[in-house]
């Protein structure tokens, strides 16, 4: 947990609550990150189109932080227990013998090393010697010794704290002998668990083009592609699109005058 401390530092820096200076905890890691490609379990939680339902991890896939040396997917954090559930219907990524793993980092803390485990066995360690991570962190891992479905645990060990960040990636390793990166196609897991709310339609992965006759206002909807001039209604008010975009939750016309003009 770092946000409280971030704010404390901020407050102290601005002299808002000088007393905080005295109670600041010792420095701790605020580095955050997770494997974003192929989609790790927490990335699937954050990817709302994945169809996997998760708890609070969906808003902070970068926060799976725990002491070094753990072998679980949730970094030992109860609130992220979803990540340990092998039967949750995680998408499995088809990979070849050699596969690139890319990390999404929200903060780039000095790094001891990166470790990749398959079924608990260390297959690769990249020593960073306490450096700050590169601008884009991508590692090519030879998985030639494995075939079929396996669970990879990717670990980011921070240099100057006792902590590490954990990401589990479900893989179907095929093609045998390494060297050839296979296109990252995926297979659906055989038995996806029924989701918690079957009445809710599964979010579609692509934006729907909206057949919108000029001058006709339709009800504003997320995931819809809007073009300049398209008209929508929201809570009885009419708006005209100023800029081509795909609507997202939080971008309601009434609160995004940069995208929508009230008419």
């Amino acid at each position: 947990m770092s946000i409280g401390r971030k704010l404390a530092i901020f407050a102290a820096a601005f002299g808002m609550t000088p007393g905080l200076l005295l109670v600041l905890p010792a420095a701790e890691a605020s580095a955050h990150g997770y494997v974003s490609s192929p989609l790790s379990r927490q990335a699937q939680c954050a990817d709302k189109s994945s169809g996997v339902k998760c708890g609070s991890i969906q808003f902070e896939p970068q926060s799976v932080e725990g002491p070094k040396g753990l072998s679980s997917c949730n970094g030992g954090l109860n609130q992220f227990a979803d990540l340990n559930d092998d039967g949750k219907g995680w998408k499995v990524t088809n990979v070849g013998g050699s596969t690139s793993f890319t990390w999404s980092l929200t903060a780039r803390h000095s790094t001891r090393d990166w470790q990749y485990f398959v079924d608990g066995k260390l297959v690769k360690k990249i020593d960073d010697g306490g450096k700050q991570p590169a601008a884009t962190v991508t590692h090519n891992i030879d998985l030639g010794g494995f075939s079929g479905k396996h669970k990879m645990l990717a670990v980011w060990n921070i240099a100057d704290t006792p902590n590490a960040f954990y990401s589990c990636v479900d893989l179907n390793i095929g093609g045998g002998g390494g060297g050839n990166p296979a296109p990252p196609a995926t297979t659906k897991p055989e038995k996806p668990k029924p989701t918690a709310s079957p009445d809710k339609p599964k979010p579609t992965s692509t934006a729907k083009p909206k057949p919108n006759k000029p001058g006709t206002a339709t009800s504003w909807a997320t995931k819809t592609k809007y073009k300049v001039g398209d008209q929508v209604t929201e809570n009885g008010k009419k708006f005209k699109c100023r800029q081509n975009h795909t609507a997202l939750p939080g971008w309601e016309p009434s609160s995004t005058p940069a995208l929508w003009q009230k008419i």
Partner: protein
Amino acid sequence: MKRLILALSALLVLTTGCSSGADASGSDDAAVDPKVPTPVAASNTYNDDDVMFLQMTITHSKQGLEIVKFGREKGSAEVKEFANAIDATEKYEVEQMKVWLKGWNKDPNASMDPNLHADHGGLPGTTDDVMADLKSSTGEDFDKKFLTALSGHQGAALELALNEEKKGANPESKDLAKRIKESRSEEVSQCLKMLNPQQ
């Protein structure tokens, strides 16, 4: 702890310099479309958490807008449209947050070196080498790097918003935090989708 104190003193020096700065600094590039109506002041109920949330989010968004600029200039058509929409919405949010802070007589330009801060547990910074990397890459490689950097950056904005939802007192700021939570988590989701097209 020594490092932390050093960082704090550095921040203090730094912020004294920044907070008295003129409004114009850095805002030229973040200009909102003049056709867009000017944001109105927020209500007068607020606490320190609201002020910090707005000040930190302004700093964070400004940095995000620099990343987004690369996407608007160099991305694929899909990435460009995405980046343009983020640009428009966040520029407006920044203006809105500034108006709210000014209405409370708080400094809307309180800012700091995000890189320095990031090293010590503060605002996660997207550093110069990330910017340089985005500047020098092209094509698919650029899209991938851009979306990866953006997913990280927007993920950090979410943390500020989650904290504000819990601790803030100002209804407008809390509503903004709710919308930031929704939009940024969806943006991260879109980044992941585009990064993993086959999945």
